[in-house]
């Protein structure tokens, strides 16, 4: 039997992106760079902006996430461990009844999903959610 990485069945479990570990050390700063492009270096605070994401992804290739950003005109989403961190940016108009969006994203490995919201008054908010990407395990 040929055992592939995906086979790591065992009760094991293995980081799907194990091969990426340490390979792209500049990834986090790529996200910071992209955030700086949006904010122009302005202060970023925490607020009502929230990310809903699983603690552990069932399938790293398609991870459901939702951002809720009351009072935002724009939300940008980043995956700070992906080779290209930009995921999506969503604009809200005054007629939008709720300022939220959901989608599915691919995560190469355990990493942070980061959202930056631009508020109606021009200020910025940030939220972060850590999503673990793993395979296998042995529940009781």
């Amino acid at each position, binding site marked *: 039997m040929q*055992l592939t990485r995906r086979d790591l*069945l065992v009760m094991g479990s293995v980081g799907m992106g194990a091969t990426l570990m340490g390979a792209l050390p500049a990834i986090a700063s790529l996200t910071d760079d992209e955030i700086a492009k949006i904010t122009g270096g302005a202060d970023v605070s925490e607020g009502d902006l929230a990310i809903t994401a699983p603690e552990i992804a069932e399938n790293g290739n398609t991870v459901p996430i939702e951002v809720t950003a009351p009072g935002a005109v724009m939300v940008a989403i980043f995956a700070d461990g992906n080779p290209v961190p930009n995921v999506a940016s969503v604009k809200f108009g005054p007629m939008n009844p709720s300022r939220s969006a959901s989608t599915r994203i691919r995560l190469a490995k355990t990493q942070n999903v980061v959202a930056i919201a631009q508020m109606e008054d021009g200020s910025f908010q940030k939220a972060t959610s850590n999503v673990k990407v793993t395979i296998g395990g042995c529940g*009781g």
Partner: protein
Amino acid sequence: MISRRDFLQVGMAASAIVGASGFGNWARLAAQQSLTQDQLLQFDTYGNVSLIHVTDIHAQLKPIYFREPSVNIGVGANKGAVPHITGADFRKAYGIADGSPSHYALSAGDFSSLAKGYGRVGGLDRVATVINAIRADRPDAILLDGGDTWHGSYTCYHTQGQDMVNVMNALKPDAMTFHWEFTLGSDRVAEIVENLPFAALGQNIFDAEWDEPAELFPPYTFFERGGAKVAVIGQAFPYMPIANPGWMFPEYSFGIRDEHMQKMVDEVRSQGADCVVVLSHNGFDVDKKMATVVKGIDVILSGHTHDALPEPVVSGSTIIVPSGSNGKFVSRVDLDVRDGKMMGYRHKLIPIFSDIITPDADVANLIDAQRAPYETAMREVIGQTDSLLYRRGNFNGSWDDLICDALLSERDAQIALSPGVRWGPSLIPGQDITREDIWNVTSMSYGEAYRSEMTGEFLKIVLEDVADNIFNPDPYYQQGGDMVRTGGLGYRIDISKPQGERISNMTLLKTGETIDPSKSYVVAGWASVNEGTEGPKIWDVVESHIRKQGTVTVQENNSVDVVGV
């Protein structure tokens, strides 16, 4: 009007009273050699609502031995907190006398000798007697099954869970939630659930394609009891497609989904619920955290991690009640629900001492009928054991040592890996090992024993990954199992370190050589979550090994060096 603060005092006072009259007394009664069924069942009916909780039965229809763990390490905020204290420390914390029935039922230590004195535990015919007695006190008591019911035995495997469905239906549960049931495959689960005469609940069971609640599993149901409206919300095991083969139930997605849980609690409250009960398969530490995140839950009936505690753990204004596993315990929780609030509770964890509690004749006959077609095959004696065979423990158990030995020799491997599951009864020294006993610790729908090659680097990744499923300081990242058991491989683990830094000193035990990251090793294991895994069934591998041994003796396992506790 009773304030929240008053309620807690009432609740805790109520608990303390029962703790003294119910639980604490086992020890004294047993010392007088007078433990009786009436004493085990004694309970001063309280309030207006009774809950009965059973969980993690793992298809154990008949009485068994079950040794609780001696190693169950807590991390982060749960370091040193129950259920992460064991043995003498556990007994000291609850005032349990050494050698008492409570010692035997709830903690490790002197297990083999106590087992000979106190006998087997569990048996669903005895559980039926206890449930009937509670219903005699409170005819409308709500019976809730926390799941892991349709998995874990020879008959359950061969009937695809039908034996358990038939026997549980006779006990008349009011609701259930799920974990291993899904390893029967989603078609079989749907077939059973569509015909269940009670609610199949799971607020976190979602349709994987649309990421919306799955229609087959409603999030909650209501019960009108004693003039109060009680909501029961189901919480299935959150990490089913990760810890078990997701390809067997690809239509479903799970997760903790505590935001959705909050929404459900708010929804049932707005519909007039006076009391909110969560029937959970989260595992104890996850439940404890969820009780702090989700507001408005009165009672969490906790399953999955197989913990049995003689008193509820109070977190904020929520009481958490874990009820053990393998049919060994039934929890009774009486509630005083008035004016839209839970005003107090009284609780008793009832141990099912099978020699003391009289079996219910009807259920006993029903169990025998399920087993009859398989009795001859199950009863075949394969060998004997000189050693206590048990499973529970964070790093190893003697059953798993034996299974790893079987994999090493029968599959001609250098290293064996065995999953860190927590189900499976114990055998005491001198017992025969029957085919049924082997199936009790190995039975599953993906039991193929693979043989493959892995590099040293890859083996380390496996160990690191599993270790983080247990020792991640945030309970929401814990999957509720134990460490993968290793045969032929020793290692050091520092549980205080982050993922990637916990495992060191990996050693091939046969030669004493250090594991080389770039070298390949022949590895045998079982319970792969991967589709298409090939190999003989693990129960056949173990049977063949035991048959050759005749009498098995398992040496003490010192191959895992645990630091950072």
